[in-house]
C-alpha cells in the first residue's frame, strides 16, 4: 500500500502527465489505441460505451479508468481482454463480458503477470472464463470487484480470482459467485483476504494450496459446492469468517488438509454437512468458533496431533465430533456443548463432570457409513448413553474436563 500511495502521488503531481479520453465520438475510439499512445504516468479515461476489444497489452505505468462503467466485450474469443505486465498501474470501473472458454490456455478478463504495485478495483465481470489471473505478482490490491459467472461444470469453467506464485496481495471487499473456485491461491504468501463474499461457486468458495503466512478474515462463504479448502499450507490465520449452508453429500464448511500451526478463531459455521473436516493437521488453535446445526461440527479423518480446542460453541449439531482412532493427542477444554448433561453445583460456570463429545454412534458411522439411516432412532440413543457411562470404543481420554455451562457470546 505504501508503495502504491507514493506512486500515485508522483503520478498526480508530475507535470507532464496527460489524460487520454476514449469514447465513441472522440478521436481515440479504442482502449488499445489509447494504451499505445500513453506513456508512463498518463491516465486513460474511458467514457461510457460498449467496446469490443481483446488482447490489450499494457506494459506502462498508467491508470485506466472507466467512467460510469463502460462495457468491454471479449466476444468469446480465447484471448484475455487485458494482458498486463507492468508496475504501478490501476484498472478500475469497467464491466467485462464474454471471455471465451479455453481448455489449453488460462485466459482471463484481466491477466496480470510479473507485475508489482498495482490496483484493480470496482470492476464487474460477467460470463468470463477466469476473471482475474495473477501470475508471479507482488504488492497488488484487488478491491471491490464483482464477479458473476454461470459455471456449469468444473472442467469448462474458471476461477474468480486465480493467483499463482504471488506475495503480499490484498483481496478485499469482492463478491464472487457462480465460478468454479471463488478465490484460488497457489504458492501465494503473506497475503490478506478480507471482507469478501463467495457464494454459489460450483467447487470451492476459497481454495488455498501451498500458500503460507496468509490471513483471511471477515469473509462470507455460502452455498458453495464443496465449501472452503485450505491445503498444504503453514501459518495461516483464519478469523471472523462465516461458513454457512454448504450443504450436500460432499460439502464442507472448511476442509483442512495438511495444515500446520494455524489459528482458527471467531468463525461461524452454520448448517454445513461437515463444519470442519480435519485431515493431518497439527498444532492448530481453534478458539471462539461457533458450530451451529451442522451435520458434523468437526470430523477428524487423519492423524492430527497437538490441536487445541477452547471456548468454542457446539450447538445442536447432529454430531459434535467424529474421531477415527482410539488415540487422542488433541486437547478440548472449556467449550460449550449444547448436549452436555452435567451440572454445576458450585455455580462457577464450569461443569463439574467432564463431557465426552464423541458418541458411540459416530464411531459406528465412521466404520459403516450405511448405519446413518438409524440416526435419531431410540436404539441409537440407548447405545450412546451406555457408551457415555462406560466408554469402550471411543478414546477415553477424549474429554472436555471443564465444559462451560453457557454459550460464549457471538
Amino acid at each position, binding site marked *: 500500500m505504501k508503495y502504491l500511495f507514493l506512486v500515485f502521488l508522483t503520478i498526480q503531481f508530475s507535470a507532464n502527465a496527460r489524460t487520454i479520453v476514449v469514447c465513441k465520438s472522440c478521436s481515440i475510439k479504442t482502449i488499445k489505441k489509447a494504451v499505445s499512445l500513453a506513456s508512463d504516468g498518463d491516465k486513460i479515461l474511458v467514457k461510457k460505451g460498449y467496446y469490443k476489444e481483446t488482447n490489450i497489452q499494457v506494459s506502462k505505468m498508467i491508470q485506466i479508468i472507466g467512467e460510469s462503467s463502460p462495457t468491454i466485450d471479449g466476444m468469446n474469443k480465447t484471448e484475455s481482454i487485458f494482458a498486463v505486465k507492468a508496475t504501478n498501474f490501476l484498472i478500475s470501473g469497467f464491466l467485462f463480458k464474454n471471455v471465451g472458454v479455453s481448455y489449453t490456455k488460462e485466459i482471463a478478463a484481466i491477466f496480470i503477470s510479473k507485475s508489482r504495485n498495482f490496483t484493480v478495483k470496482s470492476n464487474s465481470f460477467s460470463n468470463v472464463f477466469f476473471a482475474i489471473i495473477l501470475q508471479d505478482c507482488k504488492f497488488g490490491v484487488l478491491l471491490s470487484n464483482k464477479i458473476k459467472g454461470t459455471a456449469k461444470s468444473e472442467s469448462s469453467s474458471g476461477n474468480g480470482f486465480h493467483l499463482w506464485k504471488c506475495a503480499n496481495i490484498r483481496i478485499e471487499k469482492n463478491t464472487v459467485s457462480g465460478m468454479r473456485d471463488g478465490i484460488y491461491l497457489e504458492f501465494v504468501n503473506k497475503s490478506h483476504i478480507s471482507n469478501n463474499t463467495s457464494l454459489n461457486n460450483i467447487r470451492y468458495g476459497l481454495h488455498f494450496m501451498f500458500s503460507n503466512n496468509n490471513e483471511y478474515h471477515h469473509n462470507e462463504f455460502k452455498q458453495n459446492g464443496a465449501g472452503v479448502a485450505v491445503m498444504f499450507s503453514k501459518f495461516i490465520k483464519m478469523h471472523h469468517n462465516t461458513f454457512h449452508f454448504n450443504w450436500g453429500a460432499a460439502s464442507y464448511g472448511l476442509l483442512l488438509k495438511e495444515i500446520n500451526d494455524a489459528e482458527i478463531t471467531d468463525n461461524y459455521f452454520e448448517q454445513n454437512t461437515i463444519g470442519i473436516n480435519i485431515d493431518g493437521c497439527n498444532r492448530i488453535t481453534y478458539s471462539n468458533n461457533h458450530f451451529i446445526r451442522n451435520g458434523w461440527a468437526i470430523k477428524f479423518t487423519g492423524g492430527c496431533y497437538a490441536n487445541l480446542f477452547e471456548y468454542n460453541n457446539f450447538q445442536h449439531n447432529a454430531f459434535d465430533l467424529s474421531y477415527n482412532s482410539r488415540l487422542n493427542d488433541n486437547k478440548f477444554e472449556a467449550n460449550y456443548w449444547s448436549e452436555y448433561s452435567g451440572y454445576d453445583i458450585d455455580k462457577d460456570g464450569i461443569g463439574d463432570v467432564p463431557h465426552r463429545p464423541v458418541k458411540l454412534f459416530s464411531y459406528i458411522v465412521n*466404520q459403516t*457409513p450405511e448405519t446413518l439411516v438409524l440416526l435419531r432412532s*431410540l436404539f441409537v440413543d440407548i447405545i450412546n448413553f451406555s457408551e457415555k457411562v462406560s466408554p469402550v470404543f471411543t478414546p477415553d481420554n477424549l474429554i472436555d474436563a471443564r465444559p462451560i455451562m453457557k454459550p460464549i457470546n457471538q
Partner: protein
Amino acid sequence: MLKILKYSIYDLLRSRWSYVYFIFYLMLSFSLFFLNSDIDKAIITLMNVIVVLTPLIGTIFGVMYYYSSKEFTELLLAQPIKRSKIFMGQYIGISLSLTLSLVLGVGIPFVIYGLFKSAAVFDFTLLLVVGAFLNFIFVALAYNIALSINNKIKGFGYAILMWLTFAVIYDAVFMGLLIHYNDYPLDKFTLIATMLNPIDLSRILILLKLDASALLGYTGAFLQSFYGTNMGLIVSLSALSMWIVLPILRMSSKLKKKDF
C-alpha cells in the same frame, strides 16, 4: 358400528387419560416453540418424541382399553350386532381419540405461533400424518395381541415386547446386519428394511424431508432418490397403510373363530 364408535369415543373423552395425553403434547410443543424459535429444530425434537412415544401410548391404550372394557364388550356380544362391527367401532374410537389428542396438542401451539405461513407447514403436516398412522397401526397391533391372549398380564407383556421390538430391537438387528455385511452393496436392503418397520419408515420419511439426506451420504442419496419423489411418498404411505390393513384383517379372522 357408528354407534359403538361414538360410544367408545365418548367413553374415552370422559376418561382422564386422553386429556392427560392431550395436555402433554400441548405443553411439549408450546415449550418447544417457546424455547427455540427455530421451527426445523422444534420439528426434529417433536419427531423424536412422536416416533417413539405415539407407538408406545397407542399400544398401551389399545391393550388397556380392550381389557378394561372386556365385560361390557361381552355384554354387547350378546346383542344381535356383528362382532366385527363392535371391535372395529372400538378400534377406530381409540385410534381417533388418540389422534385427536395428538393433532390438537401439537397443532394448537403451531397455529398460535403463527407458523402456518412458514415453509415448515408441509413438514409439519407430514409429521401429523405420520403420527396419526402410527396411532392407527399400533392400536391395531395391540388389539391383535389382546384378542389373542386372554391373560391380562401376559397380554400387557406381549404388547410392550411388541413395541420394544419395533422401537429398539429391530434397529439393533438392522444395525448388526449393516455392520456385518458391510462389504456388500446394502442400499436395496436398507430400503426394504426401513419399509418393513413402521417406526423406521416414519422416522426416515421425516428426516429426509428435513434435509438430513445430505448427512447420509451415498445411502442418503439413494434413499432420497426413492422417498424424495412423489412415487416414494405414495409407496411409503401405502406401506404404512398395509400396516393398518394387515392387522385388521387378522383381527377379523381371529374374531370369527374366537370363543368369548
